[in-house]
């Protein structure tokens, strides 16, 4: 079973990101589950969401405490939330990153400018879709096209086309297959 934790702020589409990833998995014949770290959400507050993907039905409903991957939607959270807590040894952290250099985090860290790409393509600072595209490219869990297909359930026409271009560009900013071994060593 593959377990993923997504950190972000209320309003950044954290739950939507988790739901999109799980929906993509389900559409590709896997079992998946996605849910928020239940809280009284409000815009700007640190929030988290969880995704599980497996080739068997998923029975457990506890929070994800030992993720194989962590996705961070706001680099400022690196200073406040312990985003890498419980990260499995050899696991990967994907960070929306707009600064020089690299974040100070242990482990296998990949950065990409998700918010900037979202601003360019959508005109809004919502990093979730770009991060998911990069995540699928890194892990090769599913073709990046599968994410565009899932977005087609939410967007139509020009909005979908903008998202499609965003997905393509975001996927190209990271090394395809870099996390394939990690992702496929987990039974998903």
């Amino acid at each position, binding site marked *: 079973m593959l377990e993923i934790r997504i950190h972000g702020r209320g309003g950044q589409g954290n739950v939507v990101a*988790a739901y999109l990833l*799980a*929906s993509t998995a*389900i559409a590709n014949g896997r079992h*998946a589950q996605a*849910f928020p770290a239940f809280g*009284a959400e409000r815009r700007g507050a640190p929030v988290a969401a969880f995704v599980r993907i497996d080739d068997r039905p*998923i*029975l457990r*409903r506890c929070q994800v405490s030992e993720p194989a991957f962590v996705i961070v939607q706001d680099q400022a959270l690196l200073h406040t939330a312990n985003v890498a807590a419980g990260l499995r040894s050899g696991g990967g952290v994907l960070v929306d990153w707009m600064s020089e250099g690299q974040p100070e985090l242990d482990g296998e860290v990949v950065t990409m400018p998700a918010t900037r790409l979202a601003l360019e393509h959508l005109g809004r600072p919502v990093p979730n879709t770009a991060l998911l595209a990069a995540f699928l490219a890194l892990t090769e869990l599913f073709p990046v096209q599968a994410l565009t297909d899932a977005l087609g359930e939410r967007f139509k026409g020009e909005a979908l086309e903008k998202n499609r271009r965003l997905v393509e560009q975001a996927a190209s900013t990271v090394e395809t297959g870099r996390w394939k071994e990690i992702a496929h060593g987990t039974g998903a």
Partner: protein
Amino acid sequence: MALALEGSQAMARAVALCRPQVVAAYPITPQTHIVEGIAKLVADGRLDCEMVSVESEHSAATVALGAALAGSRAYTASSSQGILLMSEVIFNIAGLRVPLVMTCANRALGAPLSIWNDQQDSMAVRDAGWIQIYCATNQEAVDTTIQAFRIAERCELPVMVCVDGFTLTHTLEGLEMPTQEQVDTYLPAYRYARALDPAAPISVGMLVTPEHFSEVRHAHHQAVLRALPEIEAADADYAALTGRAAGGLLEVRGDASARIGILAIGSVLGTLEDAMLSQPDLPRTRLIKLRSFRPFPAEALRRACEGLDHLIILERAISPGAGAILGPEVVMALVDGGTLPKVHDVAAGLGGRDMRIDLYRRLLALTESDPKPFHVIDARLEQLPEEDR
């Protein structure tokens, strides 16, 4: 093919498949997405239904009651303080023997204020005279919602479908939805026998003197008990139609021959089963999923517990000053059968405390000593002053 749906959205669709004529609700976390989903189906013209936005839960229950009395198929949903605010009406709905369905998205009760999941709210109205069915998965929530209308209408009693707030309501997963044709076959149009009719007036809710009150209450108890075979039949017929059963009165999972049993209600059973399957070094147990809490399936429970040396009861609510809520009822049922396993009764996951995989190991450890008094197994007693430990 499984559809990727948030639990609440799936429940909203399940309600819509039942073609309710009146839905009245007031939003409260974590029930909100269910009634938002229904409201959207109505607004989009996909459900022909009177959607009544009211100013409080008391009114939500009252509108549903009135609609059902007038012969409509009616539905409402609530949680926590909302259940408490409508509790006066909840008792009246049952006492008037009105068939309607309510979803309780289970949440803790204040004070202190908590929006998170346990089952204190539905337990607070367990004596109202409703049928109460608890769901362990979102698939069960979908299937039970549809079954609930049939049970309500055949028994002329209200049915509360209890689903763990957030843990089910806010979780997206792959779910099978029945077709409209299947649900129409399963749940034909209904005519309430005592529907209000200006052409044939009757009185409802009259004063009942001591001359008759005891008989009315006894009859109500018997009516709820008579729902036992209806709940089983509703599940069996649904399974014949869709290929999916939701667990009858109760379901035994895990190792049916194990000498240790764990009885629980709601979504924690999935975590316990996963813990058992993923930790083969730990003993396998008989996992008893109590689905029907009202009526209480004493006979089925005795059969499920036959031959147990230890029975661990996991509660998701407490009765301060007494402790256990489920436990005494389970013990009464088993005493009637003559033999009693050692009963270990604890609560966990109150007010949304995460119930992790290690809960299974902690529950099993209870069997290593004689039963202790009821306690909250995941409370951090070291954080409390000495007198509260």
